[in-house]
């Protein structure tokens, strides 16, 4: 158990490469999750029972299976039917789909929170479905759910080490390969923890601000 600062500085550039990929995967995954979640939430409210049911079942299925299994499936099984995705793309799709099913619940709660009177008013003003959603419902529904969404994105950030299982060279994988080369775990793994902690703490500050800014529902 001896900590070697020289070794820390030596491996730092390698780990920073990994941090970049981790952040990239989180950002792309969050964008995808935000879009997928909205899509699922809207589809579940569809008039068409078949669409609502099948999307609902799909979301339950994704939420009920581990992310790691989904990643293996996307990376190793899909090529058998001709879908060959680069590791990072496969990882982002895995994260985006998985967390999309969670954010869908956030969207659902947000939408349900818009008072019924708003729907009726929209109808009374003779707005069509699209306009009702884009001008009346979503602008009122989305701000209060921003803090909850951001919470899921921080959770997703902490799940990115799973991508190392499908050969994405993110922070965890870089740290493992450093450990493999120098037979030392203490510095690389401590640094991985430190990186995650620092970024998470910064995100928490941002989250507080978001809560302050959007958390109140103004009516």
């Amino acid at each position, binding site marked *: 158990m001896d900590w070697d600062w020289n070794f820390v500085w030596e491996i730092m550039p390698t780990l920073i490469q990994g941090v970049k990929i981790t952040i990239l995967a989180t950002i792309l995954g969050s964008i995808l999750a935000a879009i997928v979640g909205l899509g699922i939430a809207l589809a579940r409210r569809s008039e068409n029972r078949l669409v609502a049911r099948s999307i609902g079942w799909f979301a339950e299925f994704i939420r009920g299976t581990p992310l790691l299994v989904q990643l293996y499936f996307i990376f190793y099984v899909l*090529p058998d039917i001709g879908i060959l995705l680069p590791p990072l793309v496969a990882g982002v799709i895995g994260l985006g789909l998985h967390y999309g099913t969670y954010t869908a619940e956030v969207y659902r709660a947000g939408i349900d929170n818009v008072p019924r009177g708003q729907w009726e008013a929209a109808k009374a003003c003779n707005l069509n479905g699209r306009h009702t959603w884009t001008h009346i419902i979503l602008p009122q529904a989305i701000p209060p759910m921003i803090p909850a969404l951001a919470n899921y994105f921080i959770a997703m950030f902490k799940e990115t080490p799973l991508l190392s*299982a499908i*050969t994405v060279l993110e922070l965890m994988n870089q740290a493992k390969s450093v*450990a*493999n*080369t120098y037979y*030392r775990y203490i510095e690389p793994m401590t640094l991985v923890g430190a990186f995650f902690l620092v970024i998470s703490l910064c995100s928490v500050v941002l989250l507080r601000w978001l809560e302050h800014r959007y958390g109140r529902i103004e009516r």
Partner: protein
Amino acid sequence: MKKLGILAGVAGLAVSTMLLASGARSADDAKLEQLKQQGFARVAIANEPPYTAVAADGKVSGAAPDVAREIFKRLGVNDIVASISEYGAMIPGLQAGRFDVVTAGLFMKPERCAAVAYSEPVLCDAEAMLVKKGNPKGFKSYEDIAKESSATVGAPGGGTEEKLALNAGVPRDRVIVVPDGQSGLKMVQDGRIDAYSLPVLSINDLMKKANDPNLEVIAPVQGAPVYCDGAAFKKGDEALRDAYDVELAKMKKSGEFAKIIEPYGFSAKAAMSTTREKLCAAK
């Protein structure tokens, strides 16, 4: 009275010196005694046939664990209990006391010799590459992969092949760390990597199981040396290692060693024609 005190002091010193000496001796043997008492030794393996293999029923075989099992039996330790580990995690795991010995085809190289106490050589093999049929990119060596600017090579993380590829000048982002043999095979089949590198016998074993006519083995890889592994013990367990070496030498002499490893395709002669000293000094 004073004299007596001095006498007692001297005697005490002598006794304590003797105790110290015998204490050091018994500390050396303590590891073996402890293994004997618990009845098994914990070994690290990689599940990479024919070096190490775990059958569907959980039975551990492969050339390296078979040799270790026999030697431990002769040392009075009845059985071995194996845990599967990545190559890169073996030495740190050994140092952390998770295993008593690594018997996994962990090839001897100077930097590993500095980190662990190796036994005399056990299994020797050259390096090979698995590629698509016809070797479309014409690889013969790791340097060929380095030259081809879009080529990628898969190798076990922390394995010899990963380091050989990196040393040959293949950039880090084109050396893909592959978790296990089956994944590597699949990645070559899917075209995710252009070549997958493992020792010759491991690649042959994978090929035999996959039975895929669209793949081809290049062996041996040009410029890559023949390596030998040994059982790797924790630094400080040299006494156990020396006891292990004695039994290994006996088995090599009697021909029992060849009887265990040759059915797996390894050459006993190759292991007997070299020594730990030579392999650890080699560049």
